[in-house]
């Protein structure tokens, strides 16, 4: 029997009004502006853009404000907004080799081309709370150094590839459409293009935990950071009417090239293998975790035994999306009165049956 329940409307409207009030907090404290979030909570913005799978700093900042800093709620808002917009098409694949480098480090080569460029990093900070920030602060202007305008930053993995010491990246097949999760539901087995798209928008905490698990032995693959680079990359798009490829501007990206344990055979010389991570914004932990999980998910292709969660693509890809996850977990809050009544009735019936049996056959109840 279906019982329609009504009567929550006024309570819901009032609850939302109260939520707005709580979002604003103490009205004696100045209201936060989306510009402030965009500029000063920029890594939260980067995460919301990445997992919202929509690059737009202003929208991400607005979502963070509206969600009171709950980033998964903010990502939900972004995912919902993107469904209201038409899609104009696809970019030309982003050229990370042509990145305007703001950070480039390698843990495999001390003297990588262009040098170890730290950029703005939390690395080597002492993780001590800076109480001066509790008051308003005016940090010192950055130090500058002379620039060699001819300087190039080839990828570290390209150097290994020149000596044929690392596997080649799979070449694209221009005839084959690129898989797109936003158009076709995920099916298994999933090709690497779909896996990478899924990981690129996956929950950072989930990717981090899975990446960590591979390091602790659950699908070990001996990773080295070949290179992490962060900086601006041009977005190019073809205007079909003109047959012209034009730049739409630049986006900040973080790329991680993980170099992993080699693979060879009796006939083929051993080579390092690769895991790849790419993210909007400056999301280093995310790009690194993604590259670890990408490599772990290549287990089948590389002839490795699949024994661990990070190597199980159905497990990983089905649980990486925090909007799907939060939807299913949080739906448990919604009224389940009828379901529960049914369970309750069943339980009572079972108990009654047991009682009746123990009266008629007392020995069976023992």
């Amino acid at each position, binding site marked *: 029997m279906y019982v329609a329940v009504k009567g929550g409307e006024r309570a819901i409207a009032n609850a939302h009004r109260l939520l707005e009030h709580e979002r604003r907090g103490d009205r004696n404290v100045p209201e936060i502006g989306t510009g402030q979030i965009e500029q000063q909570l920029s890594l939260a913005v980067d995460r919301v853009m990445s997992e919202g799978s929509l690059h737009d700093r202003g929208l991400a900042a607005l979502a963070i404000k509206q969600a009171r800093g709950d980033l998964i709620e903010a990502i939900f808002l972004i995912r919902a907004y993107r469904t209201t917009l038409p899609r104009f098409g696809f*970019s030309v694949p*982003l050229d990370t080799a042509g990145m305007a480098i703001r950070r480039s480090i390698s843990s495999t080569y001390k003297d990588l081309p262009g040098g170890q460029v730290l950029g703005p990093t939390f690395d080597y900070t002492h993780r001590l709370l800076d109480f001066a920030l509790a008051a308003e602060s005016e940090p010192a202007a950055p130090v500058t150094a*002379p620039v060699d305008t001819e300087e190039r930053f080839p990828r570290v993995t390209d150097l290994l590839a020149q000596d044929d010491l690392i596997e080649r990246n*799979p070449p694209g097949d221009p005839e084959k459409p*690129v898989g797109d999760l936003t158009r076709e539901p995920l099916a298994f087995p999933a090709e690497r293009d779909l896996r*990478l*798209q899924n990981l690129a928008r996956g929950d950072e905490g989930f990717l981090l935990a899975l990446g960590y698990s591979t390091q602790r032995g659950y699908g070990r693959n001996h990773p080295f950071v070949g290179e992490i680079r962060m900086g601006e990359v041009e977005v190019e798009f073809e205007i079909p009417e003109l047959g012209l490829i034009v*730049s739409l501007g630049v986006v900040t990206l973080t790329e991680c090239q993980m170099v992993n344990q080699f693979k060879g055979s009796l006939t083929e010389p051993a080579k390092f293998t690769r895991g790849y991570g790419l993210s909007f914004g400056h999301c280093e932990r995310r790009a690194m975790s993604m590259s670890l999980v990408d490599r772990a998910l290549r287990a089948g292709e590389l002839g490795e035994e699949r024994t661990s969660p990070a190597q199980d693509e159905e497990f990983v890809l089905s649980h990486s999306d925090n909007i799907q996850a939060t939807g299913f977990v949080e739906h448990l809050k919604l009224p389940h009165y009828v379901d529960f009544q049914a369970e309750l009735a069943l339980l009572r019936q079972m108990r009654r049956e047991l009682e009746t049996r123990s009266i008629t056959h007392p020995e069976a109840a023992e």
Partner: protein
Amino acid sequence: MPDTQAARPNPDCRAATMALLARATREELDQPLRAHWPKLAHATIRAPEIGLVMLRGRMGGDGAPFNLGEATVTRAVVELATGERGYGQFLGRDPARAEQAAILEALAQRATDRATVEQEVLAPIRQRLAEEAQKKRAETAATRVDFFTLVRAEG
């Protein structure tokens, strides 16, 4: 730069013009348009619209493509009374700026206006971008590690 040479349109020149207009601030388009072409009439071919472009990456940086995630894009197409069709498109959401970019892209094709567009619009944007890039590079360069090797004590 190709866009300083040609007085007549060619594809490379248009792409370079569009690339600069894509990175302009609203002020950088609005101000010269009002100063130099205050009474310009144009027809709307495609009204400014906001949509999405799926950004693609490549496996390992140079391998097969995959879909990384979408970005908001605004685009517009206009036509001048003299027939030039201008295209404006860039990352982000700003319908007014897309229309202005399209108008200036059309003006850049008109021989009589090409030099003014270059001088009053494109050159200042180009210069600002160069200065910003130079500043970022200089700040970044200061964070480059200078390794030095300690003399190993022989024992």
